[in-house]
């Protein structure tokens, strides 16, 4: 797979604060990446450096194999940072014309991208009359003008109402479906889980994980079990080699799987020991649980 972006040991200090502390990751073509981390974990700083608006303290990176962020590379990237920044006194169309001139794109694209985000009818209205959701959609339209190979989104649904959030997510999904590589920074686990195939987890400026969402933790999931005879059930489970940890929670047993075992196999085994289950669920950890687990491990 071709690497679109490679980041090596990137650091940024603001005075005494290490906003980004020697992080490394790479972004492969065609995937949707989530840059995940709580507020203040260095997501925006990292994106700022990669988009050349912030000067790094240390480290290097390359876009499409070229070191740093040359201006020509920025024209191949569509990026939305924090709040939508536009000339408030100009219409949507005029704002996009400025971006067209900057990116050397034909004005014909303006109508196409406005259609994509559903703002075609408002193109002659001043930017200052737009709602936050519309402003955010105009940002996406602006980022899509040059048909970018990579789309960078920094908290694109921040501050939007549920309807706005759904609209933005749908637009992102349709862009991803066209094969555009997307790097999405968010503190919303749920959002990353819904949209991304890969995830980079940041905490206090350190990257904890970079890879597929599905391969995030080594654990193979867990069973939630209940039976009339809980002590015997627990005893039996402890004898089995498939489980790494068994704990009681809400009158149910949680058995973490170490070696693969299906629900059917477990049920058959327990039946043979004359243990009858009233509750049997096999689950994978949600991204949220995996995330919390990772954060805990690295404390």
């Amino acid at each position, binding site marked *: 797979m071709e690497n679109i972006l490679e980041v090596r040991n990137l650091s940024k200090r603001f005075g005494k604060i290490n906003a980004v502390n020697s992080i490394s990751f790479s972004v492969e073509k065609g995937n949707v990446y989530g840059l995940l981390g709580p507020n203040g974990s260095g997501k925006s700083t990292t994106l700022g450096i990669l988009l050349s*608006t912030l000067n790094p303290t240390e480290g290097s990176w390359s876009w499409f194999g070229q070191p740093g962020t040359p201006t020509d590379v920025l024209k191949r990237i569509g990026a939305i940072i924090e*709040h939508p920044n536009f000339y408030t006194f100009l219409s949507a169309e005029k704002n996009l014309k400025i971006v067209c001139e900057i990116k050397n794109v034909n004005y014909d694209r303006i109508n196409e991208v406005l259609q994509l985000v559903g703002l075609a009818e408002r193109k002659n209205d001043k930017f200052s009359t737009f709602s936050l959701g519309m402003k955010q959609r105009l940002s996406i339209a602006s980022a899509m003008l040059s048909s970018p190979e990579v789309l960078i989104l920094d908290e694109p649904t921040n501050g939007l109402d549920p309807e706005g959030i759904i609209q933005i997510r749908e637009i992102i999904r349709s862009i991803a479906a066209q094969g555009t590589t997307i790097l999405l920074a968010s503190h919303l686990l749920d959002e990353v889980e819904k949209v991304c195939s890969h995830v980079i987890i940041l905490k206090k400026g350190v990257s904890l994980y970079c890879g597929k969402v599905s391969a995030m933790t080594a654990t193979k999931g867990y069973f939630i079990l209940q039976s009339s005879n809980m002590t015997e059930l627990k005893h039996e489970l402890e004898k089995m080699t498939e489980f790494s940890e068994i704990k009681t929670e809400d009158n149910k047993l949680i058995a973490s799987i170490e070696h693969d075992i299906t629900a059917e196999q477990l049920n058959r085994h327990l039946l043979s020991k004359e243990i009858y289950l009233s509750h049997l669920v096999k689950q994978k950890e949600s991204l949220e649980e995996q995330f919390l687990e990772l954060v805990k491990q690295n404390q």
Partner: protein
Amino acid sequence: MKRLIRIEWLKNFSYFPVILFSSIYFSLVIGFTLICAQTIPIFGISIKLLDQGFLDFPQIWNFLTYFTGLLKIFLGLIVIFTISNEFTNKLFKQNIIDGLSRKEFLFSKVLTITLLSLLSTGIVVSMGLILGFSFSKSTELNLIFKESYFILGYFLKLFSFLTFLLFITVLLKRVVFVFLTFFIWWVVEIILTVIEYQSRVIEKFDESGRNVTEKIQLLTDYLPLNTMSKLVEEPFQRIRLIESMTGGKYTFEIPYFAVITSIGYSILFLYGTFYIMKKRDW
């Protein structure tokens, strides 16, 4: 370059402060030159400018460029408001992310400044020619072009003044801070000039009471705003009334030191602007 001009045009043309200040400025410049033929009170004395030889070639250039030069703050306001808007609304940052290099951004602003200065110079030149041909005693070609330095001096005065404002606006971003800093800078230059004048220049008068103080080059003349104002000297010393009072005959000399230091300051301010754009985190 065409692309950058198009970008600047799109950005600025419908911006309210630009429309406001440019219409005020250009109507004042044109209006001012049109009332020149009238009697206006200066220093409490009503002086008919026409009688004082103001509208004769070549001193008409000195006169027009000096007085229209006083209005340059309105051009300055256009620069301050547009640049401040780029930085306070994070539009500069967005431009960079969209793929405009810092060099291109600076160059587009220099283009705007140059065009504004050229436009103003062009108007002053046309008004000078119109007034000169209507009122000047002589319209010989060599007289018309004799002091054409003032046209260049005027352009340079506007250009260096606007680069100075570009620099402090990029440095401070907010309009209020820019106004405050500009005002303080102005006052400080005046105070320094007065102090140096008091301590270095000994005023001398001859028997008839004429001022024969020796002219020396003051260090404070090299301060940015002083240098810019020295590009176009005040024209009062050459009007007939004053000449008859002092008995001296005015001779015009090109202020080379002001030309060189103004160009130097412009380069310094533009480089400083670029340095801030590059080194600061946006």
